[in-house]
């Protein structure tokens, strides 16, 4: 049945939503710092999926965002790369100083 229905923007939004939620839950539950980072990547991809879906002329010729959707998706990809670099630097710093990557033990700034 699913195979016969036409792919619409909603389908892409649904996939994006699932990826977003998976990433968010991943960020919340993982204790490994790098696992949290992976959750962030999933969240960014879920959001990107929405931009692509709204910018796609294949899915919705009338009223699509057009090029803006793809451009913003490009910016998201680039910024995600930057974010990953900084986050990794922080993670490695944390690991060097505390000999752990457990985010629960990063509580030095607790009042």
């Amino acid at each position, binding site marked *: 049945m*699913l*195979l*016969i*229905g*036409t*792919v*619409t923007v*909603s*389908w892409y*939004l*649904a*996939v*994006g*939503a*699932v*990826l*977003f*939620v*998976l990433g*968010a*839950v*991943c960020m*919340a*539950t993982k*204790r*490994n710092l*790098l*696992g949290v*980072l*992976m959750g962030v990547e*999933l969240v960014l*991809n879920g959001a990107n*999926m929405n931009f*692509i*879906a709204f*910018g*796609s*002329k*294949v899915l*919705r*010729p*009338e009223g699509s965002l057009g*090029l803006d959707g*793809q*451009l913003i*998706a*490009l*910016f998201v990809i*680039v*910024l995600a*790369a930057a974010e*990953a*670099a900084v986050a*990794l*630097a*922080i*993670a490695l710093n944390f*690991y060097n100083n505390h000999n*752990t990557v*457990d985010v629960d033990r990063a509580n030095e700034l607790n009042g």
Partner: protein
Amino acid sequence: MDLIAVAWPYWHQFFFIIFATIAIGFGFGVLLSKNVVRMAFYLVLSLGSTAGLFFLAGAEFVGAMQLMIYVGGTLVLLIFGVMLTAQKDFINMDTHTQDWILATIVGGSLLMVLLFGAFGAEDWRTPQDINDAHVSATKEATPLGLALTGIRVDTLGESTDAVADGKSGYLMPFIIVSFHLLVVLIGAAYMARTKKLSHATDDKSSRAKLMLFKMEHEEEPLEEAKYVVTHKGKSALNPLDPNDED
């Protein structure tokens, strides 16, 4: 692509379901796996099939960039970090049960809201007639590049001046992003550098403490001898790289 659409109208659905299943399935793999290296591998597959979905939606350039920057660059970095920190205790880390419960409740309700939104709008749900001209109009790399340099060729058809002014390209964000990347490059390199200098000063300070200690307890040779022994024991271990054993 448009030719195939004529021959078999369901190809888009077919590939969409394949890619979406892989993306979501390995997304669950990332969430549920405890081994951090496997998580990274599942993430690679998930993001790779997301690139496939981008291709399906007609965003070829973004799909290729997703594969190149995201999967080929960012995730390699991530796995690099995983391998640098993947010591025995940190490979498998359990999550507290209450965390799982809370996260599932919050995530489930968030998913409900998002899905409700996704299927809520009539305009997004109803398929539109796709004429083949639009399907084949995926040569969007040139307009994308021009838009990044501030020329919008795709909005020229829209004759209203407001649109022409408001959508005058992405030159400013592009420059901001490039400066941002430069800053990030320098910052990350600065933060992740090896802290040899600070270690050396630490050593020096400890040595200074030792000197002070020695000066204070000069009459007690026993203490010094004890220290030397322990120090020797330490230094005997240090130069031996654990990698050189066996």
